[in-house]
């Protein structure tokens, strides 16, 4: 059985668009910086597919990121359970910022099928407001085997977007709360979106992204249960020394959206989350390095065949060797 080829379903030769001789990545980068959206799209594809020259270029433009919260907010992560209305809110926020003169890019992340390697990327269906003009740039991405709700190479893609002059980035990912913490390694500010069907208040107190987020938005305020959900989140949050604000909105009716935009304006980073975020960044870096290791897929095959155990495979990856 062949190793997983994410999103490829390529021809038998395995060739794809990125192998076709085309503009060099530095030509694409210059054009993208000048506002050429097609070049930007092509360059992001090269980075996403792991093309070495493109990754080197991305590494060369990565801006220094401090973990002490002092960097001004440029990259906003929007996460939350499926179905709460993240995409509608992202649509509104991106449009509002774009109308205020910002150049905005949105990266929407959806899960890859672990069976087929494919993905159905449907977040941009909801982005009708930002889609009506082409001012907001939107790119859909599949997770391609990476855990934590983020996509492989997304850090490199973010670096490229910032270097091309996009001044606000929104990353939209599914976050069910306890496992999808990858956004904490990437975003300057994390917004957790919840909906009215929150279940009992114990749910609201579980650890996970709710400990790391800088703002909680309860959407669908026009539906019953939204006020109670907001109250239970506020009371859970108040047990923290630095609770995040909780805002109630309805993306559909527009209620509370002005308050949301005002909250985003000067949103401070949550104090006390620095250590936890650094820990997550290290884990993400380890995972990324394991996935980039040339032996990774072989080891998966050996495990699937019952030849070695997961612990043995991990030990082999941990040793110095090819990568």
């Amino acid at each position: 059985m062949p190793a997983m080829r994410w999103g490829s379903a390529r021809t038998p030769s395995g060739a794809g668009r990125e192998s076709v001789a085309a503009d060099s990545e530095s030509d694409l980068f210059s054009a993208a910086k000048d506002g050429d959206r097609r070049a930007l799209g092509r360059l992001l594809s090269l980075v996403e597919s792991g093309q070495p020259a493109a990754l080197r270029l991305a590494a060369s433009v990565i801006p220094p990121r401090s973990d002490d919260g002092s960097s001004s907010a440029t990259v906003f992560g929007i996460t939350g359970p499926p179905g709460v209305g993240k995409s509608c809110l992202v649509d509104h926020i991106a449009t509002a910022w774009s109308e205020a003169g910002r150049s905005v890019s949105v990266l929407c992340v959806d899960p890859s099928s672990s069976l087929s390697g494919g993905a159905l990327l449907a977040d941009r269906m909801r982005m009708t407001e930002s889609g009506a003009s082409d001012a907001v740039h939107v790119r859909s991405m599949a997770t391609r085997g990476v855990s934590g709700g983020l996509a492989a190479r997304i850090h490199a893609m973010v670096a490229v977007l910032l270097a091309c002059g996009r001044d606000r980035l929104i990353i939209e990912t599914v976050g069910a709360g306890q496992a999808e913490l990858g956004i904490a390694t990437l975003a300057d500010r994390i917004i957790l979106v919840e909906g009215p069907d929150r279940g009992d208040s114990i749910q609201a107190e579980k650890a996970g992204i709710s400990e790391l987020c800088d703002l909680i938005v309860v959407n669908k305020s026009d539906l019953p249960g939204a006020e109670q959900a907001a109250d239970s989140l506020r009371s859970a949050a108040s047990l923290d020394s630095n609770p995040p604000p909780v805002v109630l909105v309805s993306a559909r009716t527009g209620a509370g959206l002005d308050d949301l935009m005002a909250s985003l304006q000067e949103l401070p980073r949550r104090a006390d989350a620095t250590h936890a975020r650094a820990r997550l960044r290290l884990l993400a870096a380890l995972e990324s390095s394991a996935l980039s290791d040339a032996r990774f897929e072989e080891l998966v095959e050996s495990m699937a065949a019952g030849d070695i155990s997961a612990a043995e495979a991990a030990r082999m990856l941990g040793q110095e060797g090819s990568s």
Partner: protein
Amino acid sequence: MRVVIAKPGLDGHDRGAKVIARALRDAGHEVIYTGLRRTPEEIVTIVEDEDADVLGLSSLSGAHDHLFPRICDLLRTRGLDDVIVFGGGIIPSSERPSLHDDGVRAIFGPGTTTSEVLEFLTTAAERRDAGDAVGVGEDAEWRWA
């Protein structure tokens, strides 16, 4: 491949488009679905921003004869000549040749199996890799029969 499935025009139903989208995902493609009632300009911007290899256009209510050629022209104007375009939905056979001449490489009507669509995509990808004309801006002679 990265495939955009788009609904230009005013159709209110998208079950067919969603069936195709899921089948493509299950075959390993990354599929971006645009949702209903997109304008040609929006669809072409989506193809550009998503750096799509393929664009599938679905039309049930007769918008194909005006909108499919418009979208093909816009793709060419924006320099997206290598994008592979196919169509589906309710498109009478008599109207297909002219769509093919406009750059739509395959048209799938009701009753098409998902495996036929997948076969078309594999064949189209092979043509592209071999350097044969298959994009919307390339020689329009080849079409899926």
